[in-house]
């Protein structure tokens, strides 16, 4: 079941694009459109996490936050363009879980959301990813194929993780590098090729050949 995220944001473009971004990352999204009835919309949607702007028409995000805290411990991320320390302090005092200032990088926002969700809902750890009989265990950093396993380095694991998550579709090299940068692996296009060929060697050692295909001028496909 995907996590549900409620967006409380008065700028229509940001609201719409945030919904796009979040649903693209596998979340179910809802947005408050009638700020007078924000609380009832919130209760009806029952989100796992709330993105809350401070400057709203009607009641401010701070007021909304303290009202929410009266009945729920759902994680609240303040997303705002005001970055005074006073606002940040207020957000902490009122029970906000994170404070992100505009203009934020979408990747940073997504990382923050993921880490808050992990902390608030400590479900069973990352599931093993499975594709064409190959099984990736992100927990232990191993890849299993027909009873044989191979150890992966942290970087190789990240690359494979992205490919497994997008199994069956072509992943462009730029998108892959984007993902790696978001995960604090700062490599360029050439280094990516080196990593990929090392992964191929490792996979071949357990009999998994031609697992990663290169699509000319498009990217990689598993």
């Amino acid at each position, binding site marked *: 079941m995907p996590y549900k995220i409620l967006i409380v944001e008065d700028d229509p473009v940001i609201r719409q694009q945030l919904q796009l971004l979040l649903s693209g990352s596998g979340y179910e999204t809802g947005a408050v459109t009638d700020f007078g009835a924000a609380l009832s919309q919130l209760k009806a949607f029952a989100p796992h996490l709330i993105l809350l702007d401070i400057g709203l028409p009607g009641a401010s995000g701070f007021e909304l936050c303290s009202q929410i805290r009266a009945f729920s411990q759902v994680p609240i991320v303040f997303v705002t363009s005001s970055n005074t320390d006073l606002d940040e302090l207020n957000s902490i005092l009122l029970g906000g879980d994170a404070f992100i200032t505009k203009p934020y990088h979408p990747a940073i926002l997504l990382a923050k959301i993921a880490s808050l969700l992990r902390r608030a809902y400590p479900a069973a750890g990352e599931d093993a990813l499975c594709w064409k009989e190959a099984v990736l265990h992100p927990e232990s950093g191993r890849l299993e194929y027909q009873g044989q396993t191979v150890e992966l380095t942290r970087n190789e694991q990240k690359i494979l993780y992205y490919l497994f998550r997008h199994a069956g579709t072509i992943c462009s090299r730029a998108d892959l590098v984007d993902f790696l940068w978001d995960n*604090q692996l700062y490599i360029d296009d050439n280094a990516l090729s080196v990593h990929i060929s090392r992964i191929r060697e490792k996979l071949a050692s357990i009999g998994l050949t031609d697992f990663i295909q290169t699509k000319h001028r498009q990217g990689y496909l598993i």
Partner: protein
Amino acid sequence: MKYWKDRLPAVLLNLLGLTALSLFLLASSSAAGTVLLIAAIWLGVLAAWLAVGCLLERRRMDSLLSQAEQLEERYLLPEVLPPPMTAEESVYRRLMQMAEKSMLEKIAAVQRENKAYREYIEQWIHEIKTPITAAKLLCENNRSGQSREMLAQLESITHYTEQALYYARSEHTEKDSLIREIQLEDVVHQAIAENKYLLRQQQVEILVEEMPDVVYTDDKSLCFILNQLIGNAVKYRSSSPRLRFAAQTEPGQVHLLVEDNGLGIPAADLPRVFEKGFTGQNGRAVHSSTGIGLYLCKQLCEKLDIGLEIHSREGTGTTVRLTFTVNDYITGVQG
């Protein structure tokens, strides 16, 4: 000298009177001895009057001048001076008070204007952040080669916006910062993430060494400083740019090194890089230097008690060293 010049008419008048009196007395057949005696007494009194007057006046003027020296805001002088002694002085005092009043009004008006302007700038920066955010989200949701270029541009825009905000705020220091425990590594990664597209567009090689250190500071300000440093490293890059982040721990201190292999700063410019508005040789060559970035970094560092040093060799690169004090009693209290 001026004093004696001022007294010249009085002295001349006296001498004229004395001569006239002597001539008159001599004409009315007084003894020459009597006339000489009268002249001597007259001259003696005149000299005594002049001497005492000069002494008293000098003392009074000296005390006035020293009072003025001691006063910090000299435009308030008319308020602290002793009351005037002569009619002439009271007129001058009134003139000074009039000057003071119009001056104070002018200052107040300028201050009001300044404050309104600064508030408008801050407000404007808050407003501009919404469309920037929307643009970033739009690019992120429609990824392509162009949108990546666009995102790199948006990162530059964000740099300048932040710079303006910190500049507007640097003038009034009453805004306190939120000091907390932060992982040095997290801030570095955050700063890199905020410059992701800029760094990738310029194909900057990034190296982040292990940093287990924890520091106590304001993470937003630190991130701003790192953003400015990264911005500089990109702006003054060499042909195959590289940027390295590393930490060094010493007893009581943690250093964060930001090292690039860019153009470097000429030795002659080095002592002045933290000056407001200083652009130097590199700045003039690049044409988009404001001379504000490093000045703001220095200001923030002083406010947050972070040591900021810059080492550079022309053609080799620049290393910026941020030094954090690890306060024993903070860790002590937290146990």
